[in-house]
């Protein structure tokens, strides 16, 4: 067992020339992309949630006690997401899923990102079946962020068309 582990570590070290710390922590069944995103998560951090151009999605997985926050900054003129940040307290798969989600939403239109499916994230990260809910969480976080942004926008615009939608969302 010990030999196996050391072999793995040495093998990695010689192949890549650098040993990334969490590689040893995560079991081998994880896809290298999960490990990559877990090790070097993209877009970690926060945006100002009071900024009217920022939408915040806050979701949780009640079964495992994970929390995921995904924020998007939207260009009001083009409707394009110009920046994204996330903060996730959860397992490696949840972190990787939200990291991927934050990358994928950048530079896209709002209506485009709400079509991102958890299955795409899961497939990209080769998540095992027990981890599918992590990608589901990421999908829900995107939707929640968009919804939050739209609700804010409707509120500030006070436009007759958008207001009922926001009210419906709040109800």
């Amino acid at each position, binding site marked *: 067992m010990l030999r196996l582990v050391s072999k793995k570590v040495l093998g990695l070290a010689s192949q890549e020339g650098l040993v990334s710390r969490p590689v040893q*922590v995560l079991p081998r069944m994880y896809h290298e992309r999960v490990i990559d995103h877990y090790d070097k998560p993209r877009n970690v951090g926060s945006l100002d949630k009071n900024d009217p151009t920022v939408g915040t999605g*806050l979701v*949780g997985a009640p079964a495992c*006690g994970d929390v995921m926050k995904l924020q998007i900054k939207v260009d009001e003129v083009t409707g394009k997401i110009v920046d994204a940040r996330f*903060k996730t*307290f959860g397992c490696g*798969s949840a972190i990787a899923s939200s990291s991927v989600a934050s990358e994928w939403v950048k530079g896209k239109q709002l209506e485009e990102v709400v079509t991102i499916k958890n299955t795409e994230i899961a497939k990209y990260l080769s998540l095992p079946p027990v981890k599918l809910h992590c990608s589901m969480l990421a999908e829900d976080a995107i939707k929640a962020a968009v919804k939050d942004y739209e609700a804010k926008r409707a509120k500030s615009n006070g436009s007759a068309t958008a207001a009922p939608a926001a009210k419906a969302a709040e109800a």
Partner: protein
Amino acid sequence: MWKSKVWNLTLLSTILRRRPTLLSISHFQSNSTSHFPPTISRTSYFDFLGNPNFPGKTFCSESAEKSHVHVRCWSCGNVANGSLFLFCDSCRSIQPLDQSVDYFQIFGLERKYDIGVENLEGKYKDWQKKLHPDLVHSKSEKERGFAAEQSARVIDAYCTLSKPLLRAIYIMRLEGVDVDEEETLSDPELLSEILEIREAVEEAADSQELNQIQSQMQEKLDHWSSSFANAFQCRKFEEALNSIRRMTYYHRVNEEIVKKL
């Protein structure tokens, strides 16, 4: 099979001296923290929580009593005395596993959430003195199998009942309410509270700060545990589920604190 292996490695004397390793609610993130070393408690949770199709009705004490009316010892043929028949008192043979006996019955308890946890350990040890696989190592393979299953189930029962959160989830299951919540939670009040606490844990400078958060979490856990007890007693299962959700989140915070301490 996994369990019998574990058991072969664990001496009876060790078991009786020490309590089983309680990893608390590690099953909740057994998926999330997969680098967890395999432990007895971790496997055991997969048994009742990891199996989504676990038929709730088999837990019913009524059906247990009925099916036990004419149960005889497989070894000496003695008629079972009562519904709880894990062990034959006349020939000391370990009986086959009966899933219809619930954890509360194993510990001779009424099925309610508020139990005296301090009495569990003694009962647990009493069972292991009768059911531990080491006691039957020279007996038939069949009985060794029974011993492995029975003693593992007694561990499951002990681990489950001694932890408030696990006990809450279990007792809900007995009522046919599945707590395995797959859907995403979007309660902003709870989630932002948790996010804040988790950030505080992450940024805590020293163990004193961590201990402080930990005691806050314990207060919250106690509060929601009694909320659960009330809701469950009134059969307000939606409220009871809400309490479990809260407990899960605060418990998770505690686990993170323990990791850091």
